[in-house]
């Protein structure tokens, strides 16, 4: 196991190295350079000052020297300086991360639970209306633009029936009592989490349905039924446990997709997360923040892939046996 883990981590590190090199070339492909963008941001400057700034950022050096310097900086955890905030990129992103993680993880949890349940229900009666209903939901989930869904949800539940707040993560000012604070945040997050979870619900219900149909047709399920076990035990203990494997894989693989959805949902619901930060830094040409977010997203996906692999090995001992 540790040897396997080591191999995965080294491979992940190699992928991240490639992301850093990609980021470096993206910066250099951009029309104008970092200093140009800074000068434009502050409204123009003297050419001598610009040249001095270029030298201080090392932009006047040959490309490969700059690449090595960039790699060295990234290795020490220095992600550069935001032009707009005039603060380290790492700190700016970290400040926004909790909100995004809270939104994404809640939405994925709900999607996994509800999606699996829907899939199981559909697989138990493959010919009935429930099956059609699940197919319909998964098609609609695939076809709906998530940002548009967010707006429709807002129009209905924040404007037409003002049951939920339309923007933000908490009330202003936030309640002081910890319990009231949590309730307030849940109230604010309800609509965004619902919107984002619909995006994943489709794929989970689809895959858990296919996986359950597969498992329910196998011999050991017939044996379990023949033993006279309760149907609920057969379905939940014998079938679902084995059908869960593809669901776990999907959850790991979907994380990148989840980030893309979260960016849009956060922009629509004005949540103080990574999405609006990315949007704002694109408008301000704040390249260090943009590239920092791309790096962070890739890093999270790589980590999640490794974790998914580990969970998969715990759930399925056959993989471990194969390696011996």
């Amino acid at each position, binding site marked *: 196991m540790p040897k396997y883990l080591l191999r995965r981590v080294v491979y992940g590190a190699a992928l991240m190295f490639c992301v850093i090199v990609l980021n470096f070339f993206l910066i250099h492909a951009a029309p104008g350079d970092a200093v140009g963008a800074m000068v434009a941001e502050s409204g123009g400057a003297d050419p001598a000052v610009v040249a001095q700034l270029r030298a201080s950022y090392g932009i006047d050096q040959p490309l490969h020297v700059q690449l090595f310097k960039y790699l060295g900086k990234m290795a020490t955890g220095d992600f550069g300086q935001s032009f707009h905030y005039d603060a380290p990129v790492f700190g700016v992103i970290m400040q926004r991360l909790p909100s995004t993680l809270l939104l994404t993880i809640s939405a994925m949890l709900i999607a996994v639970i509800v999606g699996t349940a829907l899939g199981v229900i559909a697989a138990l009666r493959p010919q009935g209306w429930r099956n059609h209903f699940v197919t319909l939901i998964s098609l609609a989930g695939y076809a709906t633009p998530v940002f548009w869904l967010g707006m429709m949800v807002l129009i209905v539940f924040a404007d037409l029936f003002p049951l939920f707040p339309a923007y933000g993560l908490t009330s202003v000012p936030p309640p002081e009592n910890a319990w009231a604070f949590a309730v307030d945040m849940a109230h604010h997050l309800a609509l965004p989490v619902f919107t984002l979870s619909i995006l994943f619900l489709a794929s989970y219900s689809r895959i858990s349905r296919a996986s359950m149909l597969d498992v329910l047709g196998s011999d050991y399920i017939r044996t379990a039924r023949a033993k006279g076990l309760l149907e609920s035990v057969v379905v939940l203990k014998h079938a679902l446990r084995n059908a869960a494997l593809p669901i776990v894989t999907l959850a790991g693989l979907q994380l990148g997709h989840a980030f893309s959805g979260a960016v849009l949902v956060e922009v629509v619901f004005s949540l103080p997360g990574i999405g609006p930060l990315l949007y704002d830094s694109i408008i301000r040409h704040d390249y260090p923040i943009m*590239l920092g977010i791309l790096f962070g997203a890739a890093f999270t*996906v790589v980590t999640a892939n490794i974790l998914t692999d580990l969970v998969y090995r715990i759930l399925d001992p056959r993989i471990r046996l194969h390696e011996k």
Partner: protein
Amino acid sequence: MVQQPAVRASLPWVPAEDETQPEIRWRVTWQMFCANKGAVFGLLLLSVIILMGLLGPLVYPGDPFAIVAQPFLKPGGEAALGTDYIGRDILIGIVHGARPTMAIALSATLITAMVGLTVGALAGFFGGKVDSFLMGVTEFFQVLPSLIFAMVVVAVFTPSLSTVIVAIGVTSWTGIARLTRAEFLKLREREFVMGARAVGANDRTIIIKVILPNALPPLIIAITLQIGLCILLEAALSFLGLSDPDVLTWGMMIGQSRDFFFQAWWTVSFPGFVILLTVLSIALIGDGLNDAYNPKLRGR
């Protein structure tokens, strides 16, 4: 597996595993497709949307960027679907936005298909080091969330028609590459491929003329679904303002009315609904093709 290798009249060394004539197999596939109500509905819906894009601008002429009436007119009055915050007609926008939206999605899908087929075919056919290298590249692109990657690419290279198309294409080819690789891995050991090899066909001929035609059915389905994904990605980018400012797409209409959707629900609801219908029709067609090619998996 139900997919039968096609009979290649031009390639005498390909053994006829399936004696049915290609025309008959196509007819059977078509009949099975037609038996699927959802798929037929999808095909009709998509035809209506395509007709709207082709003929609409002739029937309903005008400049979609032109201010034609009062701002925020409700639907049903002077403008059938209402007007936006500066008085542009929503219906004209939807009708004229169809062509650019579809053209961008189709061009981007073409890129994903070309890159994905090439990478997947080479990896699956040659295996070994070529496979590890190409799959490493594929994994690298999979690690980058497609929307975030596309946003950064468009932002860095300034938004225009070509940067949007390339950004979508470059960020979303990995799925097709993986599927192509799997199909090539499965088919390369089959007798008809060995037969072609024995007769002396070179790698290029085997990849393009022997394996690819037999791998096509699942790939066509994947590419069909990819069109839908490209429409959604383009819509998301132009919603965020990352699109060519001179080209009106449905996503752009939603993005521009974003600050006013509480005042005027129709400015965002109708364009978004058209996107939903378009992608839904493509998904239904994809499902129908899937059922027609894999009758055993029907109902899965």
